[in-house]
């Protein structure tokens, strides 16, 4: 009997995948902080951003949200950056929006599915980083220009580049895992 995927299901599999995704995101964010954009001063590159996006696409919006939210907390805790709850929330939203396409994807190697996932990932990154950046207006009284040029754009562009390149690679690898395990 074929089981229909439910977008908002939160069972044991989602609990475990959410936990694994969070730990992975935290560790990889911590490990890849050394990567810098060539000739751009002090802008850290975070390829690990592909993790909440991919976990959202593969396991749904709740897992995507938890992976982004808790994973960012873990990454910041490991890096000694303290806790920035509004940026954690932004990362969670990024995974949540990407996960809204989870039920529409049946074959992770299919070109159309990858394109669909890419669109949702891009929307997720924009929405998540917008929420986190705009919160700076409320927190520190920054004006909209500062929010756009000092927070939003430096966060969105690297995340888009990383996410849009690495998520398809992870999707193709995941399809191979599924095929091998007969799922």
């Amino acid at each position: 009997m074929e089981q229909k995927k439910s977008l908002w299901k939160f069972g044991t599999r989602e609990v475990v995948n959410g936990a694994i995704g969070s730990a992975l995101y935290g560790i990889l964010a911590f490990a890849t902080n050394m990567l810098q954009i060539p000739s751009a001063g002090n802008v850290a590159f975070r390829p690990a951003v592909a993790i909440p996006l991919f976990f959202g696409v593969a396991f749904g919006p709740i897992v995507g949200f938890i992976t982004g939210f808790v994973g960012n907390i873990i990454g910041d805790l490991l890096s000694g950056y303290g806790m920035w709850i509004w940026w954690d929330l932004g990362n969670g939203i990024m995974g949540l929006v990407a996960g809204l396409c989870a039920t529409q994807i049946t074959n992770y190697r299919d070109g159309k599915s990858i394109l669909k996932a890419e669109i949702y990932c891009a929307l997720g990154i924009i929405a998540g980083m917008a929420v986190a950046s705009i919160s700076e207006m409320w927190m520190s009284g920054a004006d909209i220009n500062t929010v756009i040029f000092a927070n939003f754009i430096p966060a969105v562009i690297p995340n888009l580049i990383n996410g849009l390149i690495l998520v398809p690679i992870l999707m193709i690898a995941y399809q191979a895992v599924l095929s091998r395990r007969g799922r």
Partner: protein
Amino acid sequence: MLITWGYRVRNSIMERIDSRARWIFSLVFLFAITMFWDARFLAFFFILGFTWYSLAKVKWAEARRAWLMVSMILFTMIVINTIITGGGAGGIVPEGGTLVWPEGFTMPITGWTLYFGLTYERLWFAVCQLLRILPISAVFIVIPFSMDPRLYGVTFKGLGLPDKVAYTMELAFRYVPTLARDFNLTMDAQKARGYELERMGGSLLQQIVRVAPLLVPVTMNSIITGEDVTNAMDLRCFGTHKRTWLVKLTYRKRDIALIVFSVLLISTSLFLTSVMGLGGFTVPSWFLTLVGA
């Protein structure tokens, strides 16, 4: 790569306070302080925030990275936005005001005259931004250094999160050492094949693609392991009954006192801002007199 938590036992007053009460206070503090732009109220929060910070006995060397990040944010927000570019300050500072250099500012060596719209009002706003951002940072920076990572799950359960969400957090924190070990093993295996994550050369695309040989096996291996964990948990009927936790949190008198204080703090802040109309941005007359504006 060495994965370590910032937490260690410090025998501080902070550690004796219930973790739920600490979260309640931290979040209340965040919401309360953001209601104000008046420096007098912000000064109160500044003292409160740093008193709270001092209770954790966190050494400067431990929190230095976090403060470095805060200082970078402050530099962007205050020096670049408020002082140099004279940005809109979020519509909080009224238009106009008294210019600091109405005749322009002469550069010392070159003798060039620069004109920028820095006003005394914006300067005072910069002070208020400092008084607001620093205590918020202090209250949140201290959390990872003073809260045992094993307590996060039970704490969020105690704060009303569903069992499954709280357990996900608990599991995530417990997975960190295991996944860090897997990550190191994969990195060593790839390095043995000539892989170099630290190499900075190459284009942006090359740098990102270079992460894939590390990212893909670690992620896929974790997902496969997760399947076994899911099966094991299902076999033990996970999620069918209310969970019990290894650590039991109990409120003591001091925790109740902190929660009552937090309730008073938020209700007083709401009363002052919403009912009394206080707390908005104002430049004190003594400041304008002092600077001769």
